[in-house]
C-alpha cells in the first residue's frame, strides 16, 4: 500500500499493524529524547486546503519526531488564494521532492484524486476530504478504544460503539464505520433521520434514532460535532431540541456502563452534543485522543514511507 486514502483500504492485519506500530511509537515517546532518525532526509508536505490546526500540528509533530523535513502548505495566503489549481499546486510540490503529501481538503475525493492522478510521486495520506473520510482519525480512535478497553492489544471484536450526531456530513463517522467493522466492533449510528445519508442501511453497522435505547449497552460513545448552521438548513429545529434528543449530558451518561468511554474528535460544542461535566469526566478520552493522534500518524508515515505495508499485503495473498 502506497497511499492511505480510505479506512476501507486497510485489511484487518494492516490495521492491527498500524495500531501495534503506534503502540511502539507511543512507548518511544516516553523517552527523554523523543526523536527517531527513521525518516531523516525524507520530506513530508502538509497540504492543507482547509483550516485544521489540530490535525496539521499532529501530522507535523509526527513527521518531525521521525526526523522528516516538514513543509507546511496552507491554502490561505498562498498561491492557491491567487487561483492556482489543485493540479498545479501538486506538480509544484512534486517538483520540490515530496516523499509524502498529507492532504486536507474541503472537496470529497481530493486525496484519491491526488493519489490516482500521477501528479505526485510520493505517498498520499488523507487528512480529511470533504464529507468523505478521515482515516487517521479512525485509526487514532481505534487505538484509543483498544488502550482503554483491551489493554492495548488485539482487535475490537464484539465491542459496541455508538457514533452519535451528524453522520451525513461526517468524514470521521465514515472512516470509523469502515475501520471498526474491519476490527470486528459492532457499530450503531445514532442520529435524527435528517442527518443520516440515504443508503446508510447498506453500511456495515446498525442505525438508531434513539440514543437512550443505545447507551446502556455501549462500550464506547463517540459524539460528533454538530455545526450550528445545519439548523438553518432544516436538519433539526434548534440546538436546544438537538441537545434534548441527542446530546450526552450527565443524566444520560449515568445510563452508561461503568467501563464505557466517551469520545469526541473535536472541536467540541460544549452544551450542544456533549455536556461539560461529561467532557471533563473520567470516561472522557478527548485529550488522550489528541496525544494518541501523534503516535498513530507516526506509525502511518513510518509504514507508508518505509514500505512495510507492502510486505503485509504480500503475506495475505
Amino acid at each position, binding site marked *: 500500500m502506497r497511499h492511505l486514502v480510505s479506512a476501507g483500504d486497510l485489511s484487518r492485519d494492516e490495521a492491527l499493524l498500524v495500531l501495534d506500530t503506534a503502540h511502539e511509537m507511543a512507548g518511544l515517546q516516553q523517552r527523554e529524547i523523543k526523536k527517531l532518525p527513521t525518516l531523516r532526509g525524507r520530506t513530508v508536505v502538509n497540504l492543507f486546503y482547509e483550516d485544521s490546526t489540530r490535525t496539521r500540528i499532529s501530522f507535523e509533530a509526527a513527521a518531525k519526531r521521525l526526523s522528516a523535513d516538514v513543509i507546511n502548505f496552507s491554502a490561505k495566503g498562498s498561491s492557491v488564494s491567487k487561483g492556482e489549481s*489543485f493540479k498545479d499546486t501538486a506538480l509544484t510540490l512534486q517538483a520540490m521532492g515530496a516523499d509524502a503529501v498529507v492532504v486536507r481538503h474541503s472537496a470529497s*475525493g481530493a486525496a484519491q484524486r491526488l493519489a490516482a492522478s500521477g501528479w505526485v510521486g510520493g505517498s498520499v495520506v488523507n487528512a480529511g476530504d470533504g464529507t*468523505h473520510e478521515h482515516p487517521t482519525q479512525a485509526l487514532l480512535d481505534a487505538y484509543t478504544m483498544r488502550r482503554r478497553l483491551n489493554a492495548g492489544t488485539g482487535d475490537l471484536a464484539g465491542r459496541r460503539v455508538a457514533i452519535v450526531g451528524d453522520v451525513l456530513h461526517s468524514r470521521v463517522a465514515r472512516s470509523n464505520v469502515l475501520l471498526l467493522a474491519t476490527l470486528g466492533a459492532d457499530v450503531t449510528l445514532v442520529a435524527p433521520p435528517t442527518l443520516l445519508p440515504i443508503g446508510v442501511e447498506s453500511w456495515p453497522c446498525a442505525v438508531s434514532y434513539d440514543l437512550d435505547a443505545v447507551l446502556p449497552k455501549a462500550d464506547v460513545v463517540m459524539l460528533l460535532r454538530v455545526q450550528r448552521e445545519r439548523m438553518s438548513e432544516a436538519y433539526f429545529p434548534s440546538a436546544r431540541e438537538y441537545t434534548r434528543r441527542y446530546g450526552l449530558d450527565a443524566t444520560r451518561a449515568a445510563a452508561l456502563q461503568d467501563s464505557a468511554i466517551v469520545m469526541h474528535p473535536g472541536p467540541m460544542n460544549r452544551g450542544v452534543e456533549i455536556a461539560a461535566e461529561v467532557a471533563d469526566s473520567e470516561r472522557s478520552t478527548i485529550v488522550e485522543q489528541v496525544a494518541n493522534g501523534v503516535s498513530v500518524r507516526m506509525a502511518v508515515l513510518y509504514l507508508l514511507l518505509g514500505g512495510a505495508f507492502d510486505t503485509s499485503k504480500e503475506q495475505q495473498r
Partner: protein
Amino acid sequence: MSASANSSTFILRGARPYGGDPVDLVLRDGAVAEAAAAGTASAAGATVVDADGLVALPGLVDLHTHLREPGREDAETVETGTQAAALGGFTAVHAMANTDPVADTAGVVEQVWRLGREAGHCDVAPVGAVTVGLGGERLAELGAMADSAARVRVFSDDGKCVSDAVLMRRALEYVKAFDGVIAQHAQEPRLTEGAQMNEGALSGVLGLRGWPSVAEEAVIARDVLLAQHVGSRLHVCHVSTKGSVEILRLAKERGIDVTAEVTPHHLLLDESLAASYDPVYKVNPPLRGKDDVQALRQAVADGVIDAVATDHAPHAAEDKEGEWANALPGMLGLETALAIAQEALVETGLLDWAGVADRLSTRPARIGRLAGHGRPLRAGEPANVVLVDPAVRRAVDPGALASRSRNTPYAGRTLPGRVVATFLRGRPTVLDGALA
C-alpha cells in the same frame, strides 16, 4: 472512394437504407434522386461512393448541443462543434442557449445561426432562452427569436430549470402562437443545491452531495400536468431516471403532448464511475443507477422517450481536472452518439436501424420543427444522409476528436460503428470518415 467531392451527383453504391437490402442511392441537386437496384445506377460525372455493407440513415438531428460560442470559444466554437457533429453523422444540431451572452435575443440567435451557415458542416438551429439571462424571472422575447432569421422553435433555459410554475405555464402557453416548444431542464433547484452525483447508497459512501431522482421527477410530473392544462407542447431534456420514464409513460397514455430525450451517456454509463472522483464522469443530471440505465434503454425502445440527444458539453481542460466538486458538469457526445446507440440499443436487440433513424433523426427533427431533416431515404426527399459501417470496432482516442475539448468519458473504451460519410443536402461534409 473518389476524392472529387465537388461533383453534384453522388451514387452511394450498395448502401443499405435502415440496414435493409442494398441499393444504389443517387443524390443529385440536394435531393435523393432515386434508390436504384444495387449495382445498377450510373450517371455522367457522378462520384461513386463504395457503400457496400454500410448502413444508410437519414442525417442525424441533435436536439441538445452546447456549441459554447459566443463566450467560451476556448472550449468549443460553432466551427469545431459542427465539425464534430458532421463526423458523428449529424446534419442538424440545436445549439443550446446558455452561452455568454445568453441566446435570449434575436441578435444572439441570429449570430449563432449565421456562424453555423458560414461553417457549413451541418445546420445549426439555435435554441432560445425561455427567460432573460436564464434568470428564471422574466420571459425572454420569444416571439422575436421565433420571427428572426434563425426561426427559433425550441426554447430552453437548459442548465437551469424553469422552476417557477407560473413562468413555466406562461412560457408553455406563449410559444403556441408560433408552434414552439419549451424544452425543460427538469431539476428542482432547492432539492439539488450543491448536488454532485446521484443520491443513493454510493453518494453516502463517497461523501458527495446527492442529486435525488425526485428532483427531476417532481418537475416532470408538474410540467406534464401544466402542459395538459394549457394544451401545450412540452419537451423534457436529458431524462435520467426510471421514475421519470414512468411519469412520461403515464402522460403519453393520457394523451398529453409531451416528448422526451435521453443522452447517450445515460444509456451506457452508471454512477459507479463516480467512485473514481474523476470529474470526466461529472455531468448534470448525474449518471444514475444500473436500473435507471435499463429503464431508459427500454423507454427508447418503447418510444416513451422520443429521442437520443447528446447534451454535448465541451469544457476546457482546467474545468475538468482537479477536485470533483470544483469541476464543471458535462461530457462530449457528438462524435460518439451513434456508436453508443448501436451498442446500447441495436446490439442489445432493443432497436433496429430504422428505430435508430426514428430516434436520432425523424423524431428530433419533428420536435424541433426542422422541415428539411429527418425525412425518409426516398426519391424526392432532401439528401441528408449518413453512411455508417456497423462492423468496425474502435477505441475512442480523445486526441483524435474534432471537438476543441477533450472531456469524453469514453477515452480508451472500444465502441462499435464508424461514420464513413455524411451528406448535407447532397453535399458531403464527411467522406472516408474525415471532414470532406
